[in-house]
């Protein structure tokens, strides 16, 4: 049995103040001002290409805003990154093919310069117990995504960024991962931001859904998701009703 490990992170709030971004002549993000509460999961949804990934990448410090400021707690993203306070899961699990699952998960701690004592616990928790010695090539798509989530949690990040992490797996695997993995960060008080194409997934995983307009991205709706844990499933009445609310605010063109 895995021994208990402190993974509580005391997440920080994310403050975006009048943030804009364009690429050449294309305006990707119009002025966005929003505060994402500490310890909560916020989902960004919107039409494809609307700039939601750009917002996520700016919070991650991977892109710099043209104007405006982003603070994680009281620090700019790069400073938080340098002290190992950030983690991210991508659509592509981006595991290193030459490392086995254990070493891939440990990479998160290694890069964040944090102790690696939670590695085995997390491998158990994401359901990869028997696969710690396997290389990514020997795993299914869903298993690789589990390993990537474990890697992103192993450093006990203050802020967890999720860029379509379940976008590349099939629908059945996706709904299982949606049910099994989010409690790992929700229950530990990590501040999380999720970008997803799936409105239902946004509702199931988050405490708040921000609906973005077509490019340049603005926030057109801000919907609180107040669900008890047992209501968070893909086919519950409550989820369907909230998903309907979110859909009605989306500007879908085709």
């Amino acid at each position, binding site marked *: 049995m895995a021994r208990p490990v402190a993974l509580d992170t005391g997440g920080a709030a994310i403050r975006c103040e009048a943030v804009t971004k364009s690429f050449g002549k294309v305006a990707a993000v119009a002025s966005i001002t929003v505060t994402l509460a500490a310890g909560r999961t916020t989902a960004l949804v919107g039409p494809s290409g609307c700039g939601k990934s750009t917002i996520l990448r700016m919070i*991650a410090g*991977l892109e710099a805003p043209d104007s405006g400021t982003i603070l994680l707690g009281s620090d700019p993203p790069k400073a938080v990154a340098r*002290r190992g306070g950030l983690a991210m899961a991508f659509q592509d699990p981006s595991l290193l093919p030459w490392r086995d699952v254990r070493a891939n998960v440990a990479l998160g701690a290694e890069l964040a310069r944090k102790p690696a004592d939670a590695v085995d616990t997390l491998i158990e928790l994401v359901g990869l117990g028997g696969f710690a010695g396997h290389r990514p090539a020997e795993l299914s798509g869903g298993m690789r995504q589990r390993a990537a989530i474990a890697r992103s949690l192993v450093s006990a990040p203050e802020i967890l960024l999720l860029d379509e992490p379940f976008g590349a797996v099939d629908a059945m695997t996706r709904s299982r991962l949606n049910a099994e993995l989010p409690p790992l960060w929700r229950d530990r008080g990590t501040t999380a931001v999720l970008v997803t194409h799936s409105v239902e997934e946004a509702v199931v995983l988050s405490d708040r859904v921000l609906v973005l307009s077509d490019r340049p991205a603005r926030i057109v709706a801000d919907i609180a998701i107040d669900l008890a844990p047992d209501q968070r499933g893909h086919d519950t009445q409550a989820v369907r009703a909230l998903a309907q609310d979110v859909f009605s605010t989306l500007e879908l063109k085709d």
Partner: protein
Amino acid sequence: MVASRSVLWLAVALIAWEALDRALHDSVLVAGPIAILGHLMDNAGLLARATAETARNAVLGFLWGNLAAAALAALVVVVPRLERVVSALALLLFSLPLIATGPILRVLFGPGNGPQVTLAALAVYYTTFLALLVGLRAVSQSWTDLMAIYGRGRWSTLLRIRARASLPYLVIGLQIAAPAAFLGAMIGEFTGAERGLGVLTLRAMRGLETEATWALAVLSAGTAMAAYGAIGWLGGRALGYVPVILLSASRPRASRSFAARLIEAAGIALLVVALWQVAMDAFDLNRFFAKRPGDVLTFLATPANRQTLLAALGETIAFTIPGYVAGLVMGAGLAALLVLSPPLERATMPIAVALRAVPIIATAPLLVLAFGRGFTGTMVIVAVMIFFPTLVACLQGLRQAPGQIVDLFGLYSASRWHLLRSVRIPAMLPAFFASARMAVPAALLAVTTAEWLATGRGIGVLMAMTASTSDYNMLWSCVAALGLVAAAFFAAVALVERAVLARYAPEQLA
């Protein structure tokens, strides 16, 4: 099964070879396997010492050259802005035929193994550099993002991710480098050493000793191929797989205007001249043999000097181009024919891949024996040098034809020729031109080496003469002229490539 069939083929080849030797009784052309074996056994001590000497120089050059390649590749990946200049300089230096660099190094180093080691290093650094560039960049963006998320920079990404990701590509680079290093060391020995296989080869050729010439060619090609095989085997065992990649200088980008490219070329030329001057001054090399750019300009201002140089250069170019074209056409043509017959293609590919690595120069003396010291012999050496790399590259290119389009043609029962013409050849063009660019240095090396060794014409022999008569002004002028020719040749190929791709594969220029 495969092994036993290979042994069978080898036995058939050896018997045919021996029969040919018997049939051409008393000829100076061919020595049979039995005679070669006899020569190897009779001179075992001498040959072992010579092989050890050449191998030692090759190994030292292999180490230095690959270290330099790794350093250059790492620099370019960490500071991408330097890529164009570093790549252009690396290519220019690589395009200078080793046989031209050899005499210069000989006068700079004096006696000893300095030139052999340096030439071996020069022979290997460029292909390893290219392989590493591909490998260090074989990294997905999410990996580099991952590093940035944890606040890690370029160096950390280089060490933790890129270095490891590039290992399979490094294996390919090292594999190709092994015979090349051997070749470089031998050319160093051609240009005036006391010991080694190159020295023995020269002696055997000059004495018209057929058995010795064959025995030395077999010995040096065999040693080089053994190193090639050993590195591939070790790499495959250590990594589990080795990818297939084309090694070629990157194509000049199309988006840039002609004027911009001209300015860049001029800038690089100035940089080369400045580096030349600074290097000579920095080591305070004697002006008597270490000529500066100014010395060469003054020397070439005299019409008689200019005429001698241009006459020799003209001969060399006239010998190079037919061989170059023949090698490319035969390589691409055979590839196109082979792809019509998949079983034949599968059988040919591994042989062609292995033969690509044979140091053709080591067999040049044999080709000279067979085809004479004139135009035909030189042309054959150039063509053979280019043929195998082109064949391999084009076979790989032909496989790039998108499977669904091939299926589409099959669905309409289109003929193989139709498919070849409309789909496969356009898909092959980028690989063809990639090998056409890499064939430029190879052709210049082959032609100058043939001239130096055998034909007694062209700039190769002019350099050999000036080196022995201490006419260092002419020697340096020859090297500078060859550098210019290489650059112009390369630019001409790139121009043709652009025109053809614009017509048949415009997506490649995007």
